[in-house]
């Protein structure tokens, strides 16, 4: 017997009847979503691994917060390795009309050792590989910087105390992070010009890099030698850890996008389950008939398995095609942020996504299929008492296992898998429970009301199972939407609202001691009398209570990095400054008070410090020690200058410091800055609002990417809705026909239907709004420490749109039925 041929013929018929489209759509969406996200991340990984030398600009890099010792370079050269050096720091650069913050990179001959610099003769002109580095006396600018300064190749700009010629527009720098990691545009200059600029002063934060390249064995042996000679504040990067910041972000993106797309896959699984059950339930008679004709159980399973498999493969293929387009969208949104040339994705992620879709399909349809196999042939003669035996919970273990496997494969982390699984399980359970209560409540209300809508409400309870599924599916879909739109907007607005309108928007750093007095005069004459200048000294924490600091003893990565770097210390005659609050101990009020430290509460917790502990710092070779006499709470959101550790003046005032200040500059006064930078070229002005805008832009792109992935979830949610509606469609059709026979007018029917659907949408909206508010509140108070504002619009829009949307969709789905002659429906239903 040719079961396959029969299956295909039945499939063709079924397809035309439209029954299977839900199943196909669900698989298609799951595959497309998974393929989009996974192919995109695979491309990012490929880019990272294929170009890791280029991304490093070398085979190995020594990162240092001070100039690497000459003997390290000499040793590399002795081993026949090529070397080059870079120094990176932010500074103001200016023309007579404009001044801008730039990320300056001073490089030595030979840079980059791997990859190439590319330059152009004009901003946005055609570029070509550069021959070497900028000659002494000249610089290369990124197009953005040239534009902002309104300077072109051939012109000149002020860098610190030097006047340098703009020789070219820099278009590509192999070891540069993407937009994501650079707050200011690049200026590339020759290392030989650096001393004359006077930009490197005590207290300047400069990142030094020693680039090493050569034969891989020699690089490896030098790396081993270097490991023995590392100083504090130095670490080695190899090709494997090139661009840790990209890997970090990529890791996170992979996880979050992966989780977002899993939501789509899970909803798709629900849709598959619903539609598979519906499809197979409609085929009970056919199965019974086939049993009468002598089909074996194997025949039955084969007949439907072939149909489902063919559908699955077709849907997966379509999903892969859609996923291919999807990953291009993601690459467009996020690829640029990391300045990576993304190689095309290989076939693997697409194949995996297709397989995942098929596994979901199998996991959620096979249990039903195996139940179908047991259809009693007698059903054909006696319909009574031959109800389809409900599937035991055990049957769904296959589906659950498929989902868990998929989840694990996507996040590759057992703990996270369990967390997500239990989190989603709890959410689902809670949603279903609440939906159930609401459905019962609506039924109770229906029983106590009159008119056509009474029937609508009663129907909710009569079809309680279906109603609960529909309400839950909507709730989850709407919750995702609300979180991405309303809650996100609310959080941003609440945060902005906590910032005073005159919060400082400019920071000035690198102020030298001899510039303090003239600058104070300058500020006063320009209406910035409030601007306080704080001394800032860099020091490395060497010991706590006399014990040398052991970085490895701290588990927290952030704390470790903090200890590796130098602290910004300050000192004052009087302890308290604006935005600070004493939470323990006593401050000091005079310049002559005994040497002591005041420590910020948060950092004290991280370093396990308490009142009375003694801290020892190494400040430019000078050891400085004192006890902690107070802990402060700092409002970091105030955008004022703040310090983790502040000393009494008597402890630090003899050590040379640079000064820092912050102030609010109205937009129309920006020429004040030009004047200041012209008078004091070594100053660095950081425009907080520009940085905020850059951050906002990045956030927008990331949000756009997440929203894009949520489109798949939304689509899945709609398919679940459709599947849930389709599952009750036959019943509704019969009911509608009976109503018509009993003399119901179309208007009455419509009222009843609209009531039922609108109630479903309303309940889902209510639950989604409650969930979104709860999550918004938790994020505000627990994560971001923001006051939470109740947003009535969230509830109104969720319930309004929910009820209107579902009512429209539901009534549209039944439109044909209520127009049909009742007899046709009744006859078809017999």
């Amino acid at each position, binding site marked *: *017997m*040719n079961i396959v*041929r*029969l299956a295909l*013929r*039945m499939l063709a*018929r*079924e397809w035309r*009847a439209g029954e299977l489209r839900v199943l196909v759509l669900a698989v298609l969406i799951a595959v497309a979503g998974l393929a989009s996200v996974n192919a995109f991340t695979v491309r990012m990984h490929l880019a990272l691994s294929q170009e890791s030398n280029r991304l490093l600009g070398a085979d190995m890099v020594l990162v240092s917060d001070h100039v690497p010792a000459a003997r390290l370079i000499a040793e590399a050269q002795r081993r026949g390795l090529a070397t080059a050096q870079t120094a990176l720091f932010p500074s103001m650069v200016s023309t007579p009309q404009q001044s801008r913050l730039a990320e300056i990179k001073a490089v030595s001959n030979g840079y980059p050792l791997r990859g190439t610099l590319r330059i152009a003769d004009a901003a946005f002109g055609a570029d070509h590989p550069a021959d070497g580095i900028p000659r002494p006396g000249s610089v290369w600018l990124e197009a953005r910087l040239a534009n902002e300064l309104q300077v072109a190749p051939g012109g000149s700009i002020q860098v610190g105390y030097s006047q340098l010629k703009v020789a070219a527009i820099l278009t590509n720098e192999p070891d540069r992070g993407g937009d994501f990691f650079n707050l200011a545009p690049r200026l590339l200059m020759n290392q030989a010009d650096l001393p004359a600029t006077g930009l490197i002063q005590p207290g300047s934060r400069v990142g030094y890099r020693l680039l090493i390249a050569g034969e891989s064995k020699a690089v490896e042996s030098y790396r081993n030698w270097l490991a023995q000679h590392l100083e504090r504040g130095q670490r080695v990067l190899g090709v494997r850890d090139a661009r840790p910041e990209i890997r970090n972000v990529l890791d996170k993106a992979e996880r979050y996008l992966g989780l977002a797309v899993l939501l789509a896959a899970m909803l798709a699984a629900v849709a598959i389950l619903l539609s598979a059950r519906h499809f197979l339930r409609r085929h009970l*008679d*056919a199965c019974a*008939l*086939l*049993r*009468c*004709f*002598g*089909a*074996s*159980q*194997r*025949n039955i399973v084969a007949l439907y398995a072939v149909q489902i498999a063919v559908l699955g493969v077709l849907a997966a293929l379509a999903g892969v095609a859609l996923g291919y387009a999807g990953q291009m969208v993601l690459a467009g949104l996020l690829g640029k942020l990391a300045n990576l040339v993304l190689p095309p994705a290989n076939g693997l992620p697409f194949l995996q996504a297709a397989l995942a879709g098929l596994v979901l399909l199998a996991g959620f349809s096979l249990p039903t299929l195996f139940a179908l196999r047991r259809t*009693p*042939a*007698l059903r*054909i*003669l*006696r319909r009574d*008492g031959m109800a389809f035996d409900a599937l035991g919970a055990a049957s769904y273990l296959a589906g659950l296992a498929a989902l868990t496997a998929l989840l694990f494969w996507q996040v590759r982390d057992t703990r996270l898998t369990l967390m997500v699984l239990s989190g989603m399980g709890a959410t689902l359970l809670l949603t279903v429970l609440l939906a159930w209560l609401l459905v019962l409540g609506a039924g109770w209300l229906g029983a106590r009301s009159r008119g056509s809508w009474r029937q609508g409400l009663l129907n909710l309870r009569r079809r309680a199972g279906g109603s609960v599924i529909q309400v839950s599916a909507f709730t989850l879909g709407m919750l995702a939407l609300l979180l991405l739109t309303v809650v996100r907007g609310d959080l941003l607005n609440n945060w902005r609202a906590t910032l005073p309108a005159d919060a400082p928007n400019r920071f000035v750093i690198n102020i030298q001691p001899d510039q303090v007095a003239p600058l104070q005069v300058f500020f006063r004459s320009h209406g910035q009398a409030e601007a306080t200048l704080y001394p800032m000294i860099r020091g490395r924490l060497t010991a706590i209570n006399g014990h040398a600091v052991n970085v490895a003893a701290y588990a927290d990565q952030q704390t470790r990095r903090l200890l590796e770097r130098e602290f910004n210390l300050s000192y004052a005659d009087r302890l308290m400054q604006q935005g600070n609050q004493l939470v323990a101990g006593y401050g000091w009020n005079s310049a002559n008070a005994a040497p002591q430290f005041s420590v910020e509460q948060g950092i004290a917790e991280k370093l396990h410090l308490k009142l009375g502990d003694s801290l020892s710092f190494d400040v430019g070779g000078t050891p400085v020690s004192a006890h902690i006499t107070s802990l402060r709470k700092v409002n970091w959101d105030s955008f004022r200058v703040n310090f983790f550790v502040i000393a009494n003046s008597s402890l630090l005032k003899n050590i040379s410091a640079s000064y820092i200040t912050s102030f609010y500059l109205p937009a129309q006064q920006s020429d004040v800055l030009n004047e200041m930078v012209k008078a004091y070229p070594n100053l660095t002005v950081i425009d907080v609002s520009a940085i905020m805008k850059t951050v906002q832009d990045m956030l927008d792109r990331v949000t756009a990417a997440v929203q894009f992935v949520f489109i798949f979830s939304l689509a899945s949610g709609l398919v679940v809705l459709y599947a849930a509606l389709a599952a009750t469609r036959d019943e509704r059709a019969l009911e509608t026909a009976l109503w018509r026979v009993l003399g119901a007018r179309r208007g009455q029917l419509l009222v009843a239907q609209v009531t039922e659907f609108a109630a479903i949408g309303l309940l889902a909206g209510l639950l989604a709004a409650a969930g979104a508010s709860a999550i918004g509140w938790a994020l505000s108070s627990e994560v971001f420490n923001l006051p939470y504002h109740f947003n009535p619009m969230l509830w109104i829009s969720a319930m309004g749109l929910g009820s209107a949307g579902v009512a429209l969709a539901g009534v549209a789905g039944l439109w044909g039925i209520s127009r049909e002659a009742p007899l046709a429906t009744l006859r*078809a239903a*017999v």
Partner: protein
Amino acid sequence: MTTPINTFILRAAGVAKQVALNGVALTILHPASFDIRRGESVAIVGASGSGKSTLLGLLAGLDLPSEGEVWLDGQALGSLDEDGRARLRGALIGFVFQSFQLLPMLTALENVMLPLELNGASDARARAQHWLERVGLAERQRHRAQQLSGGEQQRVAIARAFAVKPALLLADEPTGNLDAETGARVIELLFELNREQGTTLVLVTHDTQLAGRCGRRLQLRAGHLEIGA
């Protein structure tokens, strides 16, 4: 019994059926024994709920008796598993149902081909076409079940039943869903083909006139079988 087994297409010995309903054992069919010879036509008659369909189900092996045994073409149905009984049905039995039971997504022709294909017939299409011609529906073979009238649907079902050359034709209230005139024509067709093919016919009906056309009748009253002439 001295008659060779082969003489009987169906034998029932002490066949009874009980079901548990809300914990109470309910006897639907009291023990009944009878034989049906090849080529015979037998009517099972009785009022609604007298156990007619239950008996038919047991004879077709769609269900197993609580007691007793049914032999179909000499094979004890109780000794076969569900798939074994399905195979036997496929090989021996043609069905005609009260509600026609055509698959709605298939055309008339495909409906007739279905059991043939399940039995692995290589000439399924030709045979199906032949039988649709025999029931006078050659022109309608590409129409789907829903596009056919009740009488037409039942004729397709008859074509489907005879197409497999069954040794035994089981008909459950074949005119139950048809008006009198259409029903009469369908019955004519059924008996004509039955005569021509030499098939054994067992039909369930509460229509005494229809029962009268059969060679023998088995009367069911509240689960008790009374064997008539």
